């Protein structure tokens, strides 16, 4: 009898492109609100890393390397080393916080706490839960990037006007790295495996993408590899006050394109774990 009945197409619970389910703003907000409430419970502790990290980096590398480096040549301009690394510190804050929230925290919510599964017993669709999680990881990136930016403004390394323009750029970066984090959370099977993209991608980006030195000093091949990595585009865009690459439009499109790709990949990785 079973042979006579042909199963329909959804035998594996997954289709490409993903079956986007109904979305309400309330649904997305409600999931985001849940994560924000957890964050709020220990907000003082939670605010410490995004505040202390850039200050430490700025103080350590700024005061430590400025006497050695002094000034840096950037787009035919000579800029003080602290002014050079301040926008990169904003980008690093965005990268670390949004990626780690998307990767570690979402993995824990998915596999240990079963938060996603619980949310799907409420009147929420998969898309709402997914978008809520993604936007929360994005928010974490924005908190880190903005706090770093404000420190840079107070320090006199970045003007308030530059900072306001930097907000949508940081948003784009946060959305991308949060999506990369979610793709990691959906792809790995053990929490230790999250270390693989961290050491294969995040740390190389952190060190090679022009964070502490201009990429021009790298060997040619490595320079091109580093330029393709998305943190380079984000840092270049955030350094718009020091000079803008002639490819800035392309860099925005590159970040947008990667974001779309990683969101779809993340949805594809997580959906079958929840909707069987």
């Amino acid at each position, binding site marked *: 009898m079973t042979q006579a009945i042909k199963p329909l197409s959804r*035998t594996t619970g997954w289709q490409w492109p993903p079956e986007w*389910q109904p979305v309400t703003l309330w649904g997305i907000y409600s999931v985001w609100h849940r994560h924000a409430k*957890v964050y709020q419970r220990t907000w003082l502790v939670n605010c410490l890393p995004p505040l202390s990290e850039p200050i430490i980096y700025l103080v350590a590398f700024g005061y430590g390397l400025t006497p050695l480096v002094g000034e840096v040549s950037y787009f035919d301009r000579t800029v003080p080393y602290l002014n050079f690394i301040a926008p990169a510190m904003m980008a690093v804050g965005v990268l670390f916080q949004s990626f780690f929230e998307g990767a570690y925290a979402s993995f824990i919510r998915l596999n240990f*706490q079963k938060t996603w*599964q619980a949310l799907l*017993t409420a009147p929420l669709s998969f898309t709402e839960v997914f978008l809520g999680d993604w936007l929360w990881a994005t928010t974490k990136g924005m908190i880190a990037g903005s706090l770093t930016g404000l420190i840079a403004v107070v320090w006199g390394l970045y003007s308030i006007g530059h900072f306001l323009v930097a907000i949508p750029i940081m948003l784009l970066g946060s959305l991308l790295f949060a999506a990369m984090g979610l793709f990691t959370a959906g792809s790995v099977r053990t929490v230790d495996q999250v270390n693989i993209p961290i050491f294969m991608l995040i740390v190389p980006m952190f060190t090679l993408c022009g964070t502490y030195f201009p990429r021009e000093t790298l060997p040619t091949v490595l320079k091109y590899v580093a330029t393709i990595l998305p943190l380079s585009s984000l840092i270049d865009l955030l350094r718009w006050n020091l000079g803008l690459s002639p490819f800035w439009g392309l860099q925005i499109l590159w970040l947008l394109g990667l974001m779309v790709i990683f969101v779809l990949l993340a949805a594809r990785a997580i959906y079958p774990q929840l909707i*069987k």
Partner: protein
Amino acid sequence: MGKIIATGTQTPDPLRRSIADQSAIDPLAQSIQSAPVVLYADDLWKFYGDHPVVQGVSLELRGGEVLGLLGPNGAGKTTTVGMLYGGVVPSRGSVKLGSISVQTAGHKARAKMGIVTQEDNLDPDFSVIENLIHFAHHYRLTGKAARTCAGELLALVNLEDQAHQAIDELSGGMKRRLVLARALINRPQVVFLDEPTTGLDPDARQEFWKLVTYLKQQGSSILLTTHYMDEAQRLCDRLMLLQEGRFIDQGTPLELIERTIGREVVEIAGIDEATVQKLAAQTQTWWRSFGDGFLMALPAEPSGLWQQLSGLQPDRLLRRHANLEDVFLRLTGDRLE
């Protein structure tokens, strides 16, 4: 070796009492039969790869009814429940809650459903009452309304004193009650309870059963999966038996028992199989091996067979009322473990 000869009629048996009660017309059963269908599933199939997990399951759940899905582990109970609330996408077939299609508008349907899954997926980041308050937010219940609702639900499940405790500090039974409270936030039309008392001690199970009975009295429709016979007999108005993803029979617990086994069975040990086989053939009754002995249904007029069995002076002879475990043994050949 000492011989054990006993009948199982010394202790009061709620099932037996209700068999007697059912000889009269049961107004509650009648009212359920005439209640409107709230949840309707039509020809549900689920394949994982080429492997069919659920095969052609159709069911109706009526207002105020407690419907039990009964079956051994791996029978497809949880997959069926998942398809009913939208957590599992059917390979074919459809589910409707009233006029809402669960497949195309699952979130709308779940606004009228309460779901207690097998796993405790409470939020360990929140206290007991915060779990309810923040979950109420998903139903657009916020502020004072959410706090009031959470307080009422905690009172209902008797967890008021634990309101500000962490989830880790709760016992297993308390966690299950809190998951149930969370499922009741929106006064659901249908409540799904997927093996809600698995792993609980007898006291905690009794507490949970009280809540289910209360919900039923309040008019909620409940779909319960379990492999505990006593739970199914106590709580369910109707049972559907599942084996390897198919429904093999359905009815009230009493109907199933009487139709499949009869009123009484005998557990017997210490006589050879040929004798049992011969006696069963003579009286045209069902038997099978059972532990170190045999299980035999007693016919409608049991005294002749009972006397013969007693006369054989077996090592162990126990006469007792038939139950759902016996039904399952007969229908599937499996124990419900």
